[in-house]
């Protein structure tokens, strides 16, 4: 095709949806572009000091955390996923969804709870006293403890992605392997584990992104990571430039992770071979002693990742309820829920627009580019916060200088906070919407168009009624994520607004960790909704495959 024809084609295919799509992408890309552009300003004064003395620590700690967490989440995630999807044992059904519950405990809350469990008057020392070993104590607030709390709250990501794989695909292959005379145990290592690699890595990449994103747990345990380093550079050293440079390095690591995940998926696409329909009906029933072992193995992560921290929090709540439960707390709860509700609504709307503008746009290149709009979830909240903070400060300054306004209208206001949240959580809303819209046969919207209805009417009459479940799950997932979010909220929240997560963090930072229990418990209880919801969705999907 010659250049003239290409031009005609572009002119023909360029519609208003392409332009609106570009607009959304541009708005979502601003924080990242800002970081990129600010790099040209050069680093701050302390940069050299940081490079010489602490950068290696940040790198080493973040790297060690990544390694430790990877090992723990793979051991917990893959083993439990394999057991519940392949064997029948007592309480299997209950454990199957209980194993998702640790996801409802944010890592920083897990960190507070475990600090308590292993603290002087915690559950662990009480237990040790009970068994007569009162001098034994475990020092928990270090990088190993941090690895443990991060892993135990994040392993369900690996569990969920592996279980989906095992339920959908493994049975046929295993039966074939068994028929060829290979034992169940050997088949797992020779056949299933290598095949499950993309599922393991997909879950693992999510875990690592959360590990890199964590601020609350690392700062509470006093472990220096990139995220805590960025915070310190900006707020303690007062050097945004240095914070930006550190953010850029972190961004490169995150993009490396994304590329790695994409690359490994491309190389291992054999796992997308036809899935088997009959699956968990054909679970094996091992002998009773093994069954009991399997129950215990699956119970351990549930106990460590949910029951133990929740028990610790409940004990604290009982001790501190009178002090913490007051009008201020109720107003913080309402504010927190209000912000989550407002932001989840806006995020779902933007995700919906992104999805359908992409669909209605006819320029192929833009269709591919639109995926960039949902990269925010991979980018640590703190980087997005900085990326939003800088342009909003500039804009406010510009407006004040021109006497258009006399006070800040973006920076430290709800607008900037909601905007940052939308950028960060767009993918959370986009994915359920996309998957529910993909489930609608393409020919349904095609036939509506052939029958004379344009994009809008097709959307309202055909597509919208069919993606309502997707909309609801998108809303709930974003709602909970915002409720749990800490680093971004800490930086972006207006002065007069507070959230449960920030309140819990403030209590913990002020050496009043027991008072953090009530807001923490409230977050966990709310977050339980999608944990249960996610499980139901998973089972439904597995039975549909």
């Amino acid at each position: 095709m010659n250049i003239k024809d290409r031009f005609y084609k572009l002119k023909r295919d360029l519609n208003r949806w392409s332009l609106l799509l570009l607009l959304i992408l541009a708005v979502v890309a601003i924080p990242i572009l800002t970081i990129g552009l600010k790099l040209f300003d050069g680093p701050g004064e302390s940069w050299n000091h940081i490079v010489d003395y602490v950068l290696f620590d940040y790198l080493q700690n973040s790297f060690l955390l990544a390694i430790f967490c990877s090992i723990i989440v793979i051991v917990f995630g893959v083993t439990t996923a394999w057991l519940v999807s392949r064997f029948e044992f007592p309480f299997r059904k209950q454990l199957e969804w209980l194993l998702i519950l640790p996801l409802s405990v944010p890592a920083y809350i897990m960190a507070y709870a475990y600090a308590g469990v292993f603290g002087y008057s915690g559950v662990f020392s009480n237990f040790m006293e009970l068994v007569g070993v009162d001098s034994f104590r475990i020092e928990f607030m270090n990088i190993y403890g941090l690895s443990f709390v991060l892993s135990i709250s994040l392993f369900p990501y690996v569990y969920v992605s592996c279980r989906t794989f095992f339920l959908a695909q493994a049975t046929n292959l295993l039966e074939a392997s068994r028929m060829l005379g290979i034992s169940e145990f050997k088949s797992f290592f020779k056949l299933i584990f290598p095949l499950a690699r993309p599922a393991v890595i997909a879950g693992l990449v999510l875990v690592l992104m959360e590990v890199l994103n964590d601020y609350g747990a690392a700062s509470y345990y006093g472990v220096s990571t990139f995220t805590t380093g960025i915070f310190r550079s900006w707020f303690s050293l007062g050097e945004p430039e240095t914070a930006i440079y550190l953010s850029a390095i972190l961004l490169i690591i995150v993009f490396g992770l994304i590329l790695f995940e994409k690359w490994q998926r491309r190389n291992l696409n054999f796992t997308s071979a036809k899935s088997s329909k009959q699956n968990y009906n054909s679970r094996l029933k091992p002998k009773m002693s093994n069954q009991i072992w399997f129950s215990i193995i699956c119970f351990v992560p549930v106990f460590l990742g949910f029951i133990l921290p929740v028990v610790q929090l409940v004990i604290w709540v009982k001790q501190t309820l009178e002090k913490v439960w007051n009008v201020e707390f109720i107003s913080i709860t309402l504010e927190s829920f209000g912000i989550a509700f407002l932001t989840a609504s806006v995020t779902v709307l933007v995700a919906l627009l992104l999805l359908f503008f992409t669909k209605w746009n006819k320029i192929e290149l833009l269709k591919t580019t639109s995926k960039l709009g949902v990269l925010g979830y991979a980018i640590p909240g703190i980087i997005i916060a900085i990326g939003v903070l800088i342009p909003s400060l500039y804009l406010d300054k510009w407006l004040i200088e021109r006497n258009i306004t006399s006070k800040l209208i973006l920076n430290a206001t709800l607008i900037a906070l909601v905007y940052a949240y939308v950028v960060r959580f767009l993918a959370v809303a986009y994915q359920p919407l996309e998957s529910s819209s993909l489930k609608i046969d393409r020919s349904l919207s095609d036939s509506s168009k052939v029958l004379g209805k344009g994009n809008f009417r097709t959307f309202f009459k055909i597509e919208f009624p069919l993606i309502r479940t997707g909309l609801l799950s998108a809303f709930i997932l974003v709602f909970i994520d915002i409720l749990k979010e800490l680093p971004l909220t800490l930086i972006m929240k207006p002065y007069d607004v507070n959230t449960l997560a920030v309140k819990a963090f403030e209590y913990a930072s002020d050496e009043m960790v027991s008072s953090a229990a009530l807001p923490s418990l409230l977050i966990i209880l709310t977050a339980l909704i999608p944990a249960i919801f996610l499980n139901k969705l998973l089972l439904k999907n597995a039975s549909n495959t």
Partner: protein
Amino acid sequence: MQATLNISNLSKSYDQGKVKALDNISFFVKKGDICAVVGESGSGKTTLIRLIAGLEELDNGEILIKDQLVASIKKNTAPEKRDVGMVFQEYALFPHLSVLENVIYGIKKSKTKKDVALETLDLVGLKGFEKRYPHELSGGQQQRVALARALAPNPSVLILDEPFSNLDAMMRHRLRNEVFNIIKKTGVTAIFVTHDTQDALAVADEILILQNGRLVQKDEASALYKKPQSIYVASLFGNTVQLNKGLQTAFKCPLKEDCCHAIRNENLTVNQDCDYVSEAEILKRTFLGTHSQLLLKLDNGEHLTVVTNEPVLGNTIKIGFNSKDVLAFDE
């Protein structure tokens, strides 16, 4: 007679031009005709109808419906403005709408909407099914609702994408005749895609053969069958044996060298006198109900598979054909 659908130099490729789906296709369909598009998977059939419907954009060429330019490199009329009806392979009935609501969906005149829909449902034999939902209907009934829905807005061109592929053989034959009787009754110009040549032969006024995105032949059904222009077309319409050098030697039938020759399986005779004959040893017999399949070894060692409904005794037979039945194609 006036052409309702006119297509010239139509090309379309995917993956930034790497995969050519359609390559310079030109043809027209006369008003009221039924045109079948036949070809193997990947031959470009579906791309062709999606381009006609406006569901995709062409790379080159022009599409005219009732002499109106609807698609070119500079113009692309949206599907909702093309005056085209379409019956999808999976029917694409809206699951949350009743049968009547499905049929009403595309009708524009608001006052008579319901009457038109009821009339069309009556036409397809679904009177009384108005309040049912798609999941409450059988495959054949869903097919008829899809047809009614496509016909109700009275389109200039009706497109049917593999309309019978989801039905079992018995239902398929019955419904095929019913559907095309209805289409003929309405007088709409129809273009339907199929990989089943029997469907095409049975109902189409003209058949269009696609191979690797190219139009290889367009003709009436009988002409296509009798005078296929390539071995590909010939083999689409029944078992065909290509007469290679070895077979020509075995049958002692020297044929022109610059041509490709073939013989239809039904024109091979067993133990009968004809122009070219060869002795053959039966290596394997496969009983297929109404007929048998024989794997033969000819005089010169060449192998040949034939299907016959003649009773065959013994281990050797005489196999042959007449020169008038030999099909010749340019290489």
